[in-house]
Structures are given as structure tokens and as C-alpha cells.
């Protein structure tokens, strides 16, 4: 007899109490035992709501209107309490810190089991087993907040695993992780699903990892389930992807371009190794483009770290003799794995920290002599989590708040607010509460609140986390616009695939040092260096290198050009 499904939704619709339209509409979906199903769709498509519907948090905790029937482990999610459903469905959220509540790793895993009344000896056994499954054995006595982001995410996964649910729901589990940590989480999902028969639902924008991990992909659009198929079926459907603003794996995008150019008839592969294998069927590659040094090096430096080292009070050496300067008007991408020192360097520039050795200069002046409030007028800082910078009841008041210390006249104040709202496309939302907006719009509010001070330098810390392709590009388009106005822009990111259209210069950091300082094209083709630092080189660069050792193409369009013998080589 076939095993009962881990979860089943039948014509499920749901509206939040103040929702203007249903967050879910007539979703019918069955999750088989041991199956991995990916949820894809643009920001606001309903992925998180669907995740929360599997364990009854939607609708029980949110209220609102619920239609249809949802079952997990055979239990109706409307008629059974959440704690009962939790035995059958585990959930891991985007920000692991939000669900870590105890003072040690082992207590964290034991906590849910204790609440379920599991006998102590059994708890001990399950804690050890779960920690071993996520490769955290040996860290059992550590405080969860001493773990890296990737380790915290794995710990959250262990807490879900220990309850031995039939289904684990992961909502954007790798959004805040570097590519290596992200790959580790997906590797664990594959292993646990295979070895234990646990089913997974994974909402994610990580196309490469979903293609490798999911058996099926469910495509959501404005609350509807609009397509369901294997990763190959979904990622090859260019019309669907374009309509639903979904990014395919880089290798798929490249082969779609090859097909469109008539260079191959092969169906686009979704895995990199398949793509590398399929290159043999393409015309021979040739040298393409000459890498140049980044522009702007001759401009006067506006941010400079002069042989800076920094050690945290607990002895962690975050920066080690960093010597780097960024010129006025440059657009620099700062890359590196979690813990490489990127955020520490930013905090030193903002004078939120003082260097243990060396000197930090902003616009040629030592920051030690400047107050943080003064620096805030020169350097605008947009943090990784926009919600941490939002505290006013309307978009307009949030943006205007930044101007309070400047003591401007009412006319100048109103004019600046108007300009900032207009630049970020927020005029229509000026009266809305910032926390009622989508994450993309919240990020725009924070950028506007920074922009209103008209700083010469703008620093963005992972601005595209949790954004879909369109949302990420719209934010980066704003940064490009600011750069074109002559401002200096620094963007910290793990999303390498997004940056070729924006950044000119790349700094790669690792273990507290600047390992590479070069043009974006050269950096993206430094595949060994990137991999050694937990960064995944863009598939286009890997395909280009496989085609020809002097092929420096970075995008599918450039790859196509590099295969056309008659095409003139563009200047990079």
C-alpha cells in the first residue's frame, strides 16, 4: 500500500485580516513521503504564507479567512492545535536567530522534545542524533549565538529533525548564508530526505540549489499555484519564468541564450555539470574580451583603511593589516564568506568600532577625530535587515526623521523628503506604515531615509537578501542611479550573479584580509580564489573558462558572442 502523503492541501485559500486580496487562492498540493518540493515565485507570491499553512500557524495564529482543507500527518490544520501539528511538521524560518531561545546548542534541540514530554533518555539520544545529522556534534555546549549564520541555520534544522516530523518546511533557509553554507544546508536536505524519508518543502530563490535538490517545483503567483513540475520542466519554460519573474539557474540561462542564437538544439540543462558536458556540442570557443583594471583608482580616496587590524574583546581577530582605499565616485562590490571581516570593515568606516591598529580615513580625515553623527552625514549606511532601521509610523515620517539633526528649514526639509521619496518610487506610499510594506519596499524606505541626508558615500550591506530577481535588480538599479550622480557606492553581497551590471571593482575578503582587489571581470574569473572563500563563481564564468582559457565572458549574451566566430570582440 502506498505511504500516506506527508501533507495535503485541497482548494486552500486564505486572506489575512487586513489583506486586500487572498494571500493564497485555491491551492491544491500533495507532498509525498520523503519528497522534496521547492516553492518558487516572486516576492509576495505567497510562499511564506503557504509554508505557515502546513503547520497551522496560518490561519490559527494570524486569524483571517480560511477556505478549503489542509492536512499534515493526516491532521486537519484548522481543527488541531499547533503544538499537536508540530509533531508532524517542523519549520525553519529565514532568520534562524528568531527561533533560537536557549543558552546552549544541546538545550536548543532538547527544548521542543521536553515540551512534547519525551522521556529524558530518549531526548539525550535524539539530541545526539540530530546534532550529528547536521554536523554540529562537538558544539553541543556552545551558546547558539556563538555559532556562525550557517551553523545557526543547521541548528534550527536539528531542532526540527529531533521531533522526527514527517515534513520539514524551510522558508528561505539560506537567504542569509554565504554560498558554501547555503550548499551545506541543501546537501543536508538531500541526505536527510534520502536516508530518513523526511519530506521537505523549501521556499527559496536559490535556483541552482533547488535544481539539484527538489524533485518538483511549485510555482506560486499572487497566491495561486500556477505551475508544478520537475526543475527541468519549470526552469526550461522561459515564458513562465519571465512572466513570474523567476531566475533560472545560471547554466540554464546560458543554454537558453545558446538555443535562441541557434547554436544548439539541446534542451537547456539545469545543473552545471550537465552544462559543462554539453559544451562539446557547441561551436568552439575563442578568446573574448580583455580584462581591465577597475576605473576610478586615480580618484581621491574617500574611504581608506591604512594597515588596519581589529580584534574583538573575545580575542577574535576580524581584520589583519587591511590596507585599501576606495576613490570618489567608485562602485565597489565587497565579497567574502560569512566571518571574513566585511561587516567589521564597514563598522570601522562608520566609526562604530575603533581599529586595534592602523588608521581609518573618510574623505582624507582620520575618523578617530570625528563623531558618528557627523560621519552619518557623509556615509549613508543601509543595514542588512531594513526592519532594524525602521521605527516611524509612516514612510514619510521615517524618511524625514533622518533630517532632524540637520536643523533645516521647513521648505528645504520638505523638498529633500520629496526628492528622496520620488527617487525611490515611494510617493504613492508616503502615508503607509513601513512595516506594512513588502521587504523590497521596506528596503527602499531605508534607502530613502539615508538618501535624504544626501551623503556622498553610500554603503549597502547585503541589500538583496530575501529579494526575488526583480526586487533585487530594482534595488541595485537605485544604487546605479546614485553612482551615476557621482556618489561612491559600496555593496556587500553574496549574490555574485547580480553584480556584473553594476559594480566596477571587486574586493574579495577572507580571514580578515583583502585577498583580491581587481576589476569585476577578473574577480569573477578567479574561480579558485572564489571557491576557496566559500563563494560560487557565476556559471557563465565557469562555462566561458571551459570553452576557452582566454574567454572572460560574464553573461549569457557575452557567452553567445564568444561562440560566434564572426562577431567582433567588444571592449569590456
Amino acid at each position, binding site marked *: 500500500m502506498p505511504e500516506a502523503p506527508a501533507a495535503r492541501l485541497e482548494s486552500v485559500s486564505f486572506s489575512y485580516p487586513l489583506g486586500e486580496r487572498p494571500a493564497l487562492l485555491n491551492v491544491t498540493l500533495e507532498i509525498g513521503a520523503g519528497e522534496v518540493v521547492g516553492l518558487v515565485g516572486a516576492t509576495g507570491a505567497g510562499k511564506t504564507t503557504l509554508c505557515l499553512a502546513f503547520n497551522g500557524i496560518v490561519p490559527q495564529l494570524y486569524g483571517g479567512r*480560511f*477556505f478549503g482543507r489542509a492536512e499534515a500527518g493526516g491532521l486537519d490544520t484548522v481543527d488541531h492545535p499547533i503544538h499537536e501539528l508540530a509533531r508532524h511538521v517542523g519549520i525553519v524560518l529565514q532568520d534562524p536567530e528568531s527561533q533560537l531561545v536557549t543558552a546552549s546548542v544541546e538545550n536548543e534541540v532538547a527544548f521542543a522534545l521536553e515540551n512534547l514530554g519525551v522521556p529524558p533518555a530518549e531526548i539525550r539520544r535524539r539530541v545526539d542524533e540530530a546534532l550529528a545529522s547536521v554536523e554540529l556534534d562537538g558544539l553541543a555546549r556552545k551558546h547558539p549565538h556563538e555559532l556562525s549564520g550557517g551553523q545557526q541555520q543547521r541548528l534550527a534544522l536539528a531542532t526540527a529533525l529531533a521531533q522526527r516530523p514527517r515534513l520539514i518546511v524551510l522558508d528561505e533557509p539560506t537567504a542569509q548564508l554565504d554560498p558554501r553554507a547555503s550548499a551545506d544546508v541543501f546537501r543536508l536536505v538531500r541526505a536527510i530526505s534520502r536516508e530518513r524519508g523526511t519530506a521537505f518543502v523549501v521556499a527559496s530563490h536559490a535556483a541552482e540549489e533547488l535544481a539539484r535538490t527538489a524533485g518538483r517545483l511549485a510555482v506560486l503567483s499572487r497566491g495561486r499555484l500556477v505551475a508544478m513540475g520537475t526543475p527541468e520542466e519549470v526552469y526550461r519554460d522561459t515564458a513562465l519564468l519571465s512572466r513570474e519573474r523567476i531566475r533560472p539557474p545560471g547554466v540554464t540561462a546560458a543554454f537558453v541564450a545558446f538555443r535562441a542564437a541557434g547554436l544548439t538544439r539541446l534542451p537547456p540543462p539545469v545543473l552545471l555539470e550537465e552544462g559543462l558536458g554539453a559544451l562539446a556540442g557547441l561551436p568552439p570557443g575563442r578568446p573574448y574580451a580583455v580584462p581591465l583594471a577597475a576605473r576610478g583608482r586615480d580618484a581621491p580616496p574617500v574611504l581608506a583603511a591604512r594597515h588596519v587590524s581589529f580584534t574583538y574583546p573575545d580575542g577574535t581577530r576580524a581584520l589583519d593589516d587591511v590596507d585599501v582605499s576606495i576613490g570618489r565616485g567608485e562602485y565597489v562590490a565587497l565579497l567574502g564568506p560569512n566571518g571574513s571581516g566585511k561587516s567589521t570593515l564597514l563598522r570601522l568606516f562608520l566609526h562604530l568600532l575603533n581599529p586595534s591598529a592602523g588608521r581609518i580615513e573618510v574623505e582624507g580625515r582620520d575618523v578617530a577625530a570625528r563623531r558618528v553623527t557627523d560621519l552619518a552625514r557623509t556615509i549613508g549606511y543601509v543595514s542588512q535587515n531594513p526592519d532594524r532601521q525602521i521605527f516611524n509610523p509612516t514612510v514619510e515620517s521615517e524618511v524625514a526623521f533622518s533630517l532632524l539633526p540637520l536643523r533645516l528649514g521647513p521648505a528645504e526639509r520638505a523638498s529633500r523628503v520629496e526628492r528622496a521619496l520620488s527617487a525611490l518610487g515611494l510617493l504613492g506610499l508616503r502615508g503607509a506604515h513601513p512595516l506594512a510594506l513588502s521587504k523590497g519596499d521596506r528596503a527602499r524606505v531605508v534607502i530613502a531615509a539615508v538618501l535624504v541626508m544626501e551623503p556622498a558615500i553610500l554603503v549597502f550591506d547585503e541589500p538583496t537578501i530575501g529579494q526575488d530577481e526583480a526586487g533585487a535588480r530594482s534595488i541595485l538599479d537605485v544604487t546605479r542611479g546614485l553612482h551615476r550622480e557621482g556618489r561612491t557606492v559600496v555593496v556587500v553581497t553574496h549574490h555574485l550573479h547580480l553584480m556584473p551590471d553594476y559594480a566596477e571593482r571587486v574586493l574579495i575578503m577572507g580571514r580578515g584580509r583583502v585577498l583580491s582587489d581587481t576589476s569585476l571581470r577578473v574577480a569573477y574569473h578567479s574561480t579558485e580564489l572564489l571557491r576557496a572563500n566559500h563563494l560560487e563563481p557565476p556559471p557563465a564564468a565557469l562555462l566561458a573558462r571551459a570553452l576557452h582559457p582566454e574567454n572572460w565572458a560574464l553573461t549569457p549574451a557575452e557567452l553567445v558572442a564568444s561562440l560566434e566566430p564572426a562577431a567582433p570582440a567588444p571592449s569590456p
Partner: protein
Amino acid sequence: MSEPDPAAPSEPLGPERTVRLLGAASVGGAPVAYVVVLGAVVAVLSFIPFSVALSAGGSFPMAQGVYPLMGWLLGPAGGAVASAMGSLVGLFLAPHTAGIPWLTVGGAATGALFAGCIVARGRRALALGAVLLVAGETWLFSHHATVANGVRPGIFLLAYLAHFAAMVLFLLPTRRWIGRLIESPDLGRVWLGLFLGTWCATSLMMFSESFVSYWLLNWPSPLFVMFIGIIPLEEAARSGIGAVIGTGVIAGLRSIALPKPPGARY
């Protein structure tokens, strides 16, 4: 691959279900998680000494301005527990802001309970209990001060004028009116409602605390003269704190549509 159905209905197909929170731990209907989070807010605000409160012999913590807010956000029972729990933690973390510890914790709970009566409708029994309690305290307090200890009645009346004004607001239909202001969609009216509501609730709370303190300590008569200026100032400060913090919190909660506990009134 399954493809989209162009004729897909735009209305829900399945039967509508009755939505309710099942089996979750709650205090008076307020989920324990809410109570704990808001209790933590009270504990944090207990760190901040806000003024010199001579009646208690020390400074009063900023948290006193938000005890009533707990009553409107969580309902009387959940609010009382959150306030008491937060102020109890605050006693250990910031003892300099607590006068008589057990009285501080009890006062925090009654502040939320009084606020729980200041609503647009319902809770008549709770309000009646509050009225009887305050009436009894007023009689005992005034008798003890004026008859037993010789404080001049006029001085006593002036010293606690701000609190007596709050009692009048509480007794009249203004209690309902303030409740309606707090539930108004207009944030300006919410601010006004929170200011007046906090004035009422913390005045009743402080009057109760003062009564017990006086019974224990018997302040000298000249101190009542000083109260004439100090008490209105302190009440204004508490009301301002409650209105500013409360308006921001309520605006945020409404915007993110976090489910309200059944006893919440905002």
C-alpha cells in the same frame, strides 16, 4: 508539467472554515508569547529612572507609563500578568527604580487592570470592582491623613487633585469615550485617548500605591504640600510616555495585522 488554467476562478472554491487558536497557552486569551514579549518590554523600561517620586522615596521607572498600555494590548488579565512579570524582573535588574518591591509589582498589575476597564464597551463588573476599591481607599486614606494625622483637608485635596480628576474621568461616561478614542483609526485621536487613559489608569494606580505606602510610613504633613506640584507633573510624564510609546506600538501592530488577543482594545 501542470500548466495554469486560464479559466481559474478568482473566488475561493473550498468551504470557509471557522478560524480559532486551539490549545495554545494563554492568559485571559492573550497568548503566553505576547505576554512574555511585552513583559520583557516592561522589564527593559524599568531600567530607566524617569523622575524623583517622593512618595516612594526614589525615582520612578519609565515602565510606569506603559503598564496601562499592557491592559489595552493584552486585556486586563494578560496585561496585569505582563506588567507584574516585567516589573518583578525590573526589581532585580534595576532596584534603584523600585520603592517598596511588592507594592511596585502589585501596582504594575493594577495599572493594567484599571486600563482594562477604560474601554468603549463591556467590562462593567471589573469597572465596578475598581470603583469600589478606589472609593474605599479614598475614604480610608483621607480619614487616616486628615483625622488621624492632622493633614489639612484642603491640602490633601490639592495634593491628590490630579488623581481625583482621574477618578472623575473614570466614573463618568468619559471612560467609554476614552476607550473609543483608543480604538479610533485616527492616530491623533489614539494619542489623545492613550494620554487621557494613561492619566486615569496610572492615577488610580498611584493613588492605591500611595494609600498603602502612607498606611505603612505615615509621611510628615509638609510633604503633602510638595505633592501639589509634583504629582501633576509626574502624571503628565507618565501619560506622555504612555501616549508616545503606545501610539507607535498600536500603529505598528495595526499595520502588520498581528492577530489581536480577544481582550485587546486598540
